[in-house]
C-alpha cells in the first residue's frame, strides 16, 4: 500500500519516537509512506484561536500539495493535524466560493478530495486479521487503558470516526495483539492539549485525573494515538507526581509502540526507551512482571 504521509511538526520534533515506531510497524506491514513534499504546519490551536482564515488556508495548502503530487489518501498520525486537515477539506467541499478563494490564497488548486486517515484507521485498513496473523509476541501481560483524548473523535461531524462517546477501535486493535483492555471513564476526556507551556497547571490537573482513573480501573499502561497526549501524560508525569504527591508510574505507549512490540520489535527499535516513564518490565512475554517494579523512570531517569 502506498500512502501520502503528513508527519506534522510534532513527529519531526520532540515526538520523533512516535514516528520511529509507526515507521517500523508500517514497513513490516508493507505500507510505504511517501512524505508530502514541502508540507507546512497545519496551524494547530494557534491558527484557529487567532485567525480563522489561516486555520483553513494552512491545512488546505497541504491538501493541495498532496493532491498535486498525485495522492488520494494520506496518513496524518497527529489528531490535531488530521482534524485540521479534515476541517479544511469539509469547509472547501461545502462552499465553492471558499474553495476558490482558498485556492487563490494558497496558490494551488485545492480540490479537497484527498482522504485523511488517522493511525487507527490505517491499522483498520490494513485489517485486524492481517495484524493478528503478523503477531509474533502476544501482549499477554498488558492490561491497557485505551485513551482517545479529544480530537480523534471530535468534532464528530468533521472527523467522522468511531463512536464519539464510547469509541472501541483501539480496544479492538489491542485485542488482536493479545492484550487485555480495561473499561474506564476518561477515554475521551482532554489531557490539556497544547497548554503544556502556557498553562501547565491545566495539564497537570487534567492528566492527573486521567492517570488516576486508568489506575483505579486496573490498567498497567495507557495507549495513546496522539503526540500531545503522550507529552502531557508521559513527559509531564514526573511533574504530576511531584505536584500531587502521588506515584503513578504509568507507562504511556503510542498505539504504534504496542503494535510494534507485538510484531516482535525490540523496544529500542520503536523508541520506547526514549519515553520518560520507563516501561521495561511490561514488554512482551513478561507475564510475571511485578507491578511494584513498574515505572522507575518516572523520576526522570532514562528508561532502559
Amino acid at each position, binding site marked *: 500500500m502506498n500512502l501520502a504521509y503528513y508527519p506534522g*511538526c*510534532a513527529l*519531526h*520534533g*520532540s*515526538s*520523533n*519516537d512516535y514516528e520511529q515506531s509507526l515507521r517500523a510497524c508500517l514497513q513490516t506491514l508493507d505500507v510505504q509512506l511517501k512524505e508530502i513534499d*514541502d*508540507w*507546512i*504546519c497545519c*496551524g*494547530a*490551536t*494557534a*491558527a*484557529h*484561536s*487567532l*485567525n*480563522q*482564515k*489561516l486555520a*483553513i*488556508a*494552512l491545512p488546505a*495548502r497541504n491538501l493541495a500539495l498532496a493532491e498535486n503530487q498525485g495522492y488520494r489518501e494520506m496518513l496524518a498520525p497527529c489528531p490535531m493535524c488530521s482534524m485540521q486537515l479534515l476541517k479544511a477539506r469539509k469547509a472547501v467541499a461545502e462552499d465553492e466560493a*471558499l474553495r476558490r*478563494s*482558498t485556492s*487563490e*490564497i*494558497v*496558490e494551488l488548486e485545492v480540490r479537497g478530495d484527498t482522504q485523511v486517515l488517522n493511525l487507527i484507521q490505517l491499522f483498520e485498513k490494513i485489517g485486524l486479521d492481517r495484524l493478528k496473523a503478523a503477531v509474533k509476541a502476544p501482549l499477554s501481560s498488558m492490561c491497557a487503558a485505551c485513551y482517545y483524548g*479529544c*480530537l480523534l473523535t*471530535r*468534532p*464528530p461531524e468533521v472527523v467522522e470516526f468511531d463512536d*464519539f462517546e464510547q469509541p472501541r477501535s483501539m480496544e479492538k486493535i489491542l485485542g488482536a495483539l493479545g492484550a487485555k483492555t480495561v473499561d474506564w471513564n476518561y477515554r*475521551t*476526556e*482532554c489531557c*490539556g*492539549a*497544547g*497548554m503544556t*507551556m*502556557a*498553562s*501547565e497547571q*491545566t495539564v497537570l*490537573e*487534567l492528566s492527573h485525573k486521567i492517570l488516576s482513573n486508568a489506575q483505579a480501573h486496573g490498567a498497567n499502561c495507557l495507549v495513546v494515538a496522539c503526540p500531545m497526549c503522550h507529552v502531557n501524560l508521559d*513527559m509531564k508525569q514526573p511533574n504530576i507526581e511531584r505536584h500531587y504527591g502521588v506515584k503513578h508510574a504509568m507507562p504511556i505507549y503510542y498505539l504504534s509502540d504496542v503494535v510494534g512490540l507485538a510484531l516482535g520489535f525490540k523496544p529500542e527499535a520503536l523508541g520506547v526507551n*526514549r*519515553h*520518560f516513564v520507563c516501561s521495561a518490565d511490561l514488554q512482551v512475554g513478561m507475564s510475571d512482571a511485578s507491578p511494584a517494579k513498574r515505572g522507575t523512570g518516572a523520576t*526522570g531517569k532514562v528508561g532502559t
Partner: protein
Amino acid sequence: MAAGMDAPPTRLIRLLQLGHVEAALRAQSIWQCVSCQTCATRCPKSVDCAGVMDALRQLSVERGAATPEQQRTVLFQKAFLNNIRRNGRLNELELIGEFKLSTFLHGRSLSFLLKDATLAPELMKRKKFHLVGEKARDRAVLARIFARCRDESHL
C-alpha cells in the same frame, strides 16, 4: 474542562445572547479553553460553542482586550504563529525562546522565564531536542499566505 472555568460555555453563550460581549471577553475561560470540542459535541441545541470560543479569542486579540491573566496564552499562540510564518514548520526551541522572552518582557517573572529549563537536557538525552529545526523550502509563499489571511478582502 468547563468545571474550572469562571464562565463555562453555557454562560458565555448566554452573555452573548444578551449582548454582553465585553463581559464575555473579560472571562478567563476564553483563554483557559483547551479546544477539546466537548461543549460543541454535547450541546443539546447544536451550538458550535468551540467555534464561538475561537471567535471570542479573535475578537479579544483584535480589540487588544486580553486581561493580564489571559496574556500568557495569547503570547504563546502569537509566538506559535510567528514561528510558522518564518519557518513553515514549528521550531520548538525557537518557539520556547520567543514565548519565554515575550512573557518575561510582559510580566518580568524570572521564575517563569527559568521554569522548565531543566527539561532541555532530559529531552536531549532522549534525542527529542533539535538545535536546528526543519524549515519548509518555499517560505516566500508562507509570507504571502499570512499576508492574504490578514487582508479582509479574502475569504
